[in-house]
């Protein structure tokens, strides 16, 4: 009994002692060990690219004595929060993929790249890629890959309706409209078409339909990021065009504007109710996989219900967004994959981080992007898809694809503008008013941001 009583007193003391010892032990281990440890955090990149990364990490460790790279995989859903907690508690990783956040830049947590790249290297990157990693005149990340949105065409539906796909993958707005009209079919004349030309979606973080606006000349922010220039005749024209598609010519799915990306994709690939859709380039590979799966199922003799339920193999192609007049068509891009280096205290370690980051974003890495339907950020990578029957022409357009502005308030800007565009597309608000409201609200956001920044400094 007395022993138990004594141990009760001892217990909390022992607990604290163990904690302290654990703390000290870790510290002393850290001091004794020699290798430089680089914390590398990256998001899920798909099986092939993941494996390539792991191979590169192993290679780097072997070829550099005394270096250990600890890799942590982030999930797309929860990764940003995990990174945020680590950064704001003073424990950022050393190298991180797709982690550029102006909040970190403003806190002085990120190494700038201006002096770390030679002029030849700089020239190797596509300007749009560099722009997407530049804030207030300095380069904060090394670009890695680009993606873009494109128009997917269901050639089977084109053929069935007797419409020719655009020549050379290009069309003007008039040609586009004409074909959309032909592709919209109301078989039983009840006013509801069974087949539409296209579906449009606007939603925060979904930029599929923005290229329509970009091709009319829309700009969202001024180059210095302080003014919202969204309210312009170009934007008005662009949105009116889209509005007309839905309400005037009725060639776009009703409900367009309030739809989500996955809905338009579902209607395109499963229901075959639209002949064209705007999707990321990943959809090319997704559709190929679907076709292959259907084919394999058919070969295995899974025949009953086959045609109706299991989907049809789609003969498809891609097209650029309709351009205005003779201008070059522009593609939109959601962003640029990149690597960021957090501020380093040890110059030796910084050099290694830089070397590692450079290695991961040049040469072979660019070639590996093809496994993930991604496009290179470097000119020297050439055209990864030149032998691809569908994508062989796309590279130069992706290289020039317009990326949305890099701005700390982008999340809110996106939400505000997407909401106004939705209202306009649904006809719940006059277009001009929606655009104006959007621009005013965004300007208020920007003003507040710069005001607070001024106060803080």
């Amino acid at each position, binding site marked *: 009994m007395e022993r138990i009583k004594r141990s*009760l*007193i001892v*217990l*909390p003391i022992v*607990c*604290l002692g163990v904690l302290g010892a654990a703390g000290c032990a870790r510290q002393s281990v850290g001091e004794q060990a020699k290798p430089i440890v680089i914390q590398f955090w990256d998001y899920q990149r798909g099986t092939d690219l993941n494996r390539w990364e792991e191979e590169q990490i192993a290679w780097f460790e072997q070829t550099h004595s005394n270096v250990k790279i600890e890799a942590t995989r982030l999930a797309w859903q929860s990764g*940003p*929060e995990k990174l*945020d907690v680590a*950064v*704001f*508690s*003073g424990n950022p990783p050393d190298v991180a993929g797709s982690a550029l*956040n*102006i*909040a970190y830049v*403003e*806190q002085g*947590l990120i190494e700038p790249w201006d002096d770390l790249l030679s002029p030849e290297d700089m020239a190797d990157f596509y300007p749009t890629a560099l722009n997407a990693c530049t804030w207030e005149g300095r380069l904060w990340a090394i670009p890695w890959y680009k993606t873009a949105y494109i128009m997917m065409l269901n050639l089977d539906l084109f053929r069935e309706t007797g419409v020719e796909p655009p020549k050379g993958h290009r069309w003007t707005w008039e040609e586009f409209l004409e074909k959309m009209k032909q592709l919209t079919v109301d078989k039983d004349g009840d006013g509801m078409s069974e087949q539409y030309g296209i579906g449009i979606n606007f939603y*925060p973080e979904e930029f599929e339909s923005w290229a329509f606006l970009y091709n009319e000349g829309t700009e969202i922010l001024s180059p210095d990021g302080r003014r919202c220039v969204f309210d312009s005749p170009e934007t008005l024209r662009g949105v009116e065009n889209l509005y007309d598609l839905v309400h005037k010519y009725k060639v776009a799915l009703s409900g367009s504007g*309030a739809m*989500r990306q996955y*809905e338009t994709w*579902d209607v395109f690939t499963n229901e075959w109710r639209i002949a064209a859709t705007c999707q990321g380039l990943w959809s090319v590979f997704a559709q190929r996989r679907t076709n292959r799966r259907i084919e394999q199922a058919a070969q295995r003799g899974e025949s009953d219900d086959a045609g109706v339920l299991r989907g049809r193999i789609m003969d498809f192609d891609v097209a650029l967004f309709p351009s205005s007049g003779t201008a070059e068509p522009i593609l939109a891009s959601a962003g640029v994959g990149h690597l960021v280096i957090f501020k380093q205290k040890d110059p030796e370690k910084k050099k290694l981080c830089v070397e590692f980051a450079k290695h991961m974003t040049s040469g072979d890495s660019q070639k590996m992007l093809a496994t993930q339907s991604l496009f290179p950020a470097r000119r020297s990578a050439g055209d990864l898809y030149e032998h691809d029957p569908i994508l062989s022409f796309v590279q130069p357009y992706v290289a020039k694809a317009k990326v949305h502005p890099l701005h*700390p*308030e982008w*999340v*809110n800007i996106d939400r505000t503008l997407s*909401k106004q565009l939705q209202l306009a597309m649904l006809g719940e608000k006059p277009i001009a008013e929606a655009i104006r409201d959007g621009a005013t609200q965004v300007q208020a956001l920007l003003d507040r*941001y710069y005001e*607070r920044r001024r106060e*803080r400094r």
Partner: protein
Amino acid sequence: MRTSSRKSLWGYLFIAPHLSLFLVFLFLPVLLAFLLAFREVSVIRFEGSADFFRFLVSDYIGWRNFSDAFAEPVFYSALRNTLLYTLVMVPLSVGLSLLLALLIIPLNERLQGLFRGAYYLPSMFSGVILALLWRWIYEPKNGILNLALDALGVQGPNWLGDPKIALASILVSAAVYAPGLGVIIYSAAISRIPDELLEAAHMDGASTLQKWRSVVIPLLKPTTLFLVVINTIWSFQVFTSIYIMTRGGPGDSTTTLVYFIYDLAFKQVGRKGEAAAVSFILFAMVAIVAFIQFRMLRSEAEY
């Protein structure tokens, strides 16, 4: 005198293990968060005690985070949504559990256990899993709900994508599992009602409904109040289902206070101090409500 101080010592000893962990891992972070609410957000560097003192002293901006939070329109949407959710969920959950517990009474022991278990088991599943499941059920195209409605010839709405009904959809998905705990607690409380009271009511020829109304329900008041308090606290803090199902959207129709806090802390730039401020506003609200309800509970305890 000596015995009382000796007793005090034992008192402290017994709470010491838990309290020491609590102080380090819960109280200290809450304190830091509280300090954060009055400071400009910056990285919390803590490589030595000098950092900590610097954090305490510098970066102090008084109540600005609070005033910024109050100036943010989304705060009021979040407040409205949270209050709406709470005002519907609490009576629904408590009322349903009471009803179910009363309905179970006349059944035999085994069936009672079966039903109680059936209602309680699903609420033991993790909130994340239930939210994922319901998000899949609410899918406008492939979701089982709209498919079933379609089979009946009814066009199902976009449950989570229509700002007018999104919050209601989330509420319904939670209300299905909320009564689980209540049923068990009520059943237990009902079983403690002394025989004599019920005998007396029965002798007077009271019908079932009268029996319920005049005898059983009043006796369950303490339980009712307890469940109301617990459900209120939980409803104020609803987050996981929002995070999984709608991310606060469309617009801010399903943004609740805790989701707003999450958004400020992790999606917005440079507003972590505001997030901390709103957390403490929420804390104050919940504490006041719970305190009021506890007081009422205390006075009702005598019967």
